[in-house]
Every structure is written in C-alpha cells, then in structure tokens.
C-alpha cells in the first residue's frame, strides 16, 4: 500500500530551500555567461564548452556546487520524488527572476503556469509536512 509517511525534517527542508535559491542564482549566471560567449566560433560551442570563457559561468558553477551540496544532504533523508518535486520551485523562481533581472518576457499565460506549478508543490508538500507534525 503506498504511503506518504516519510518524515521530512526542517533541516533537510532548509538544505533543499538553500539548494533551490543557489540553483536559481546559478541559472541566471549561466545565462549571463552564455550570452557573453555566444559570439565565439560555432565549433567551440558544440557542447557549450566555450561558456567557460566567461567569469560569470564560473561564478555560476560555484553557486551550482553549493546547491549540489545542499541537494545531496536533502537527498539523504528524502525520497527522490519529493525532493525533486519540491525543487520545481526553481521553475517558478527562474521565470520570475529572468523577467525581473534579465528583462525576459513574462506573459499572463506564463503567470498562470507558474500558479499551477505552485499548486502542484502544495499538493506534494502537504502530506510530508503533516506527517512531520504528527511525529
């Protein structure tokens, strides 16, 4: 019988939240680094190697490594479906910060999609939070 009784500690949630913020910052830095290197010859861009020519990319890598450490700590104590599902908050954070900081477009429809993602996050998060309160 499927059960959602996994206990999720505040510590592992904090690790996951920190990882989500770091990966959002990393994505923005990667985009900045990729934009800065987009003019380089096509042969170098086959596997995106040329993004390493930008300092922004390296800052992004540092932020990504930080998020990875938080992610691994969360992963030790959480089922993968829950940890990865909750990391979808990044799907909300990236379009919002891309709009805010990079000036990318944010339509009404996209806002609607963001709200649906948030609803999904609440649905998967609630049983895990409740099981912690009971324990």
């Amino acid at each position: 019988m499927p059960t959602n009784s996994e206990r999720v500690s505040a510590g592992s949630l904090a690790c996951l939240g920190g990882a989500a913020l770091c990966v959002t910052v990393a994505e923005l830095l990667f985009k900045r680094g990729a934009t800065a290197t987009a003019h380089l010859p096509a042969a170098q861009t086959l596997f995106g190697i040329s993004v390493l020519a930008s300092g922004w990319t390296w800052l992004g890598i540092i932020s990504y490594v930080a998020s990875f450490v938080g992610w691994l700590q969360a992963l030790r104590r959480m089922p993968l479906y829950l940890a990865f599902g909750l990391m979808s908050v990044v799907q909300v954070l990236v379009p919002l910060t891309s709009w805010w900081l990079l000036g990318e477009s944010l339509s009404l429809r996209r806002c609607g999609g963001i709200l649906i993602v948030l609803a999904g996050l609440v649905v998967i998060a609630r049983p895990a939070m409740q099981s912690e309160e009971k324990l």
Partner: protein
Amino acid sequence: MTTALLITAVASQLCLVTGQLLMKHAMNQTNLTPVPWARFAPRFALGVAALSAWFFLWGGLLQRADLSYLFPFEGLSPVLIVFGAALFLKERLTPQSWFGIVLIGAGVAVVSAS
C-alpha cells in the same frame, strides 16, 4: 525550436534523470552503518558524469535560446524522475502525490507554451 535543439534538450533531460537516480542511490548508501563506500563510489562517480554531461548540453542550449523559453524543458524531469524513482528505487507515491507531480508538469507545460 529546431530539431537539433529539441534532440539536445531531450538528451540533456535523459542525462539529468539518469544522474539524479544514480545520485539518490549513492546517497541512500550513506545512511547505512558502516557506509559501504565501495558501493557508494561507482554510483556517485557515474552520477557526477551524467550530471556533467547534462550541464554542458544545457550550457550549449543556453547560448542559443532565451532562458525562460528553454527552462520549461526541465519541467519534463519531475515526471520522468518520479517514474524512474518508482521503477528503479521502488519509491511509493499516493495518488495525491502523483496528482501533485502531474500538476507541476502541466504548469510547466503552460509556462513553456506561453
């Protein structure tokens, strides 16, 4: 979105899902006492390799398209990861959790279509 970009996006997704499954499997070993490092190391290394492949494929895509249009491709991954976790890691989900994951996937699809 050209065919080449689409194939690259799908390949990067497969690398991401495979990498995360390996990583979860590796981190599960660290909860055992004593930690079976001989079982942990190859899973962790392969996981890092798969995630590195994802990183460079993703970096290449970012050079060619807007982040907010590309990023929803990662929205495929919660659904793929949950299938993988249920299939290979024997994680069990309630119907409610499946519904939540489907909502997340649907929300991401709307974001990508906009």
